[in-house]
């Protein structure tokens, strides 16, 4: 039989190759910033910051909390579930989408509200979870964050909100829109109580999230390279019919234009916040 008619055992070969690839991927990965190959373990040790080019990889809400708290933390209001006020259906019903997200993330919605100590000082921290429908803010996130702020007022503790969010949640329509006003009003009370609010803007923070609580910090702190803006880049390009300049809506752009107090690298974030709270509340005794 001629060699070219011979049947190859293609299946086995293919799957063996795949397995090999998976193993490599587990150990090494390519940096999204500098395209260089980096050792995954080195990346984990450097808090998901590229050791070669300082590119900040996105981290999830739990890892963000690990980064900021001294040890274990207490969570609040983790049992709130959206009741789908509009009965919204897109490519699949919103309630199904929610169920899938809950299974994938182990969260009831796109936020973790937590309390614990940061460099020895009791604080409340809310972190938005980008993996949960793009960290979008609907009735549940609005309520959980508002409760956290009210708790900070009642307990007289500093409030920190780390945003990673595409904005308000389309699937909850005007209900989610009003959460912008609700959270901002709660921050007004925190402000009246003269308690510190530190807003941490991470990649990406856009839309109504930036247009409400993320921009209202006593300190607005960005992570290097984070995309921060109100309107989406594509919407702007369509409106003005021009290409956007390099670095537009990056943290550095916002710093230059006066909307961030500082850009702080992830490894220094905790000590930076600790020092700021020493300034606001007085050093710990």
């Amino acid at each position: 039989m001629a060699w070219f008619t011979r049947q190859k055992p293609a299946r086995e070969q293919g799957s063996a190759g795949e397995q090999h690839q998976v193993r490599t991927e587990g150990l090494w990965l390519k940096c999204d910033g500098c395209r260089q190959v980096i050792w995954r373990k080195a990346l984990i040790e450097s808090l998901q910051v590229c050791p070669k080019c300082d590119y900040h990889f996105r981290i999830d809400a739990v890892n963000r909390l690990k980064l900021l708290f001294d040890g274990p933390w207490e969570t609040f209001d983790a049992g709130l579930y959206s009741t789908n006020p509009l009965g919204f259906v897109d490519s699949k019903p919103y309630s199904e989408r929610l169920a899938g997200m809950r299974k994938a993330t182990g969260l009831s919605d796109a936020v973790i509200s937590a309390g614990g100590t940061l460099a020895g000082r009791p604080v409340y921290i809310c972190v938005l979870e980008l993996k949960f429908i793009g960290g979008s803010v609907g009735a549940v996130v609005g309520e959980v964050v508002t409760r956290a702020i009210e708790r900070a007022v009642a307990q007289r503790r500093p409030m920190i909100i780390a945003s990673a969010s595409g904005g308000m949640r389309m699937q909850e329509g005007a209900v989610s829109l009003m959460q912008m006003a609700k959270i901002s009003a709660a921050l007004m009370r925190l402000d009246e109580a003269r308690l510190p609010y530190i807003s941490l803007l991470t990649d990406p923070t856009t839309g109504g999230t930036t247009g409400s609580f993320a921009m209202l910090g006593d300190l607005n702190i960005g992570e290097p390279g984070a995309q921060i803006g109100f309107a989406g880049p594509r919407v702007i390009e369509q409106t003005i019919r021009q290409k956007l300049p390099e670095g537009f809506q990056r943290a550095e752009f916002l710093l230059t234009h006066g909307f961030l107090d500082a850009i702080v690298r992830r490894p220094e974030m905790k000590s930076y916040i600790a020092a700021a709270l020493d300034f606001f509340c007085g050093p710990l005794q």
Partner: protein
Amino acid sequence: MDSEQTTDRIAALEAELAAARQVQAAHPWQRVQLARHPKRPHSLDYIQRTISGFQELHGDRGIADDPAIVAGMGFFEGNPIVVVGQQKGRDTKQKLFRNFGMPKPEGYRKALRIMLMAEKFGRPVLTLLDTPGAYPGIDAEERGQAEAIAVNLREMSRLKTPMVVVCIGEGGSGGALALGVGDRVFMMENAVYSVISPESCAAIIWRDSSKGELAASALKLTAQDLLRLGLIDGIIPEPGEGAHTDVDQAAENLKRTLRAALAELMALSVEALVEARYQKFRKMGNFFTEVAG
């Protein structure tokens, strides 16, 4: 029949009419079209018919005057009032001048400046919402569109003076809400108020911005929807086929609502007012169940 009885009778008939209209409720997409109707009355049309001696005040005292927001002072039935509204243009020249009613950060900052002035002199504020959204442009982002909106939301929530909000046309997301925090929030019958435009919503879901009609239904953006969701306090009826068919009557209806709202609000202490405003927005969006955990 004395005049009071007549007024009551008129109110009853209008309620009946509104109920009758409900039955043949227009499709949400028709409402969107009405809200954007080329002849739809804009902020200045209402101001002209509602406020006497209106003096427009310009500029954010920082960078510019934004024509997409008109702000000023005047008198409503003899009493001083401050009015701030998003303003669209009617012909091409006016549309460009008003930037299609899409405010820039300096517009929101002007609005806040004038509202703080109202607070200082103890004057009530009427805001009129009518915008497709905050302007999405490079300059607007550079000057802090997000920050300007955020600050307005926070500051309006503590402004120590009565505030009445009326969405007269398009309530375009955060760009509208930036003037939309008040003690009473109303919508004109054919106004819409939404987190995203139906076209943009359709572009996200179906990758096809021409499916706005479907998205308009899904978004629940009509006045009736918002009332049902507990997000507004009432609906101001529109005459005939819509406000554009009888602008005088539409303004008359707005006046009646404003009169009643101000009578209630002016009787409250500013402390009670600000507390009630907080509670009002605090309760918005109680659409969740809670399980212990």
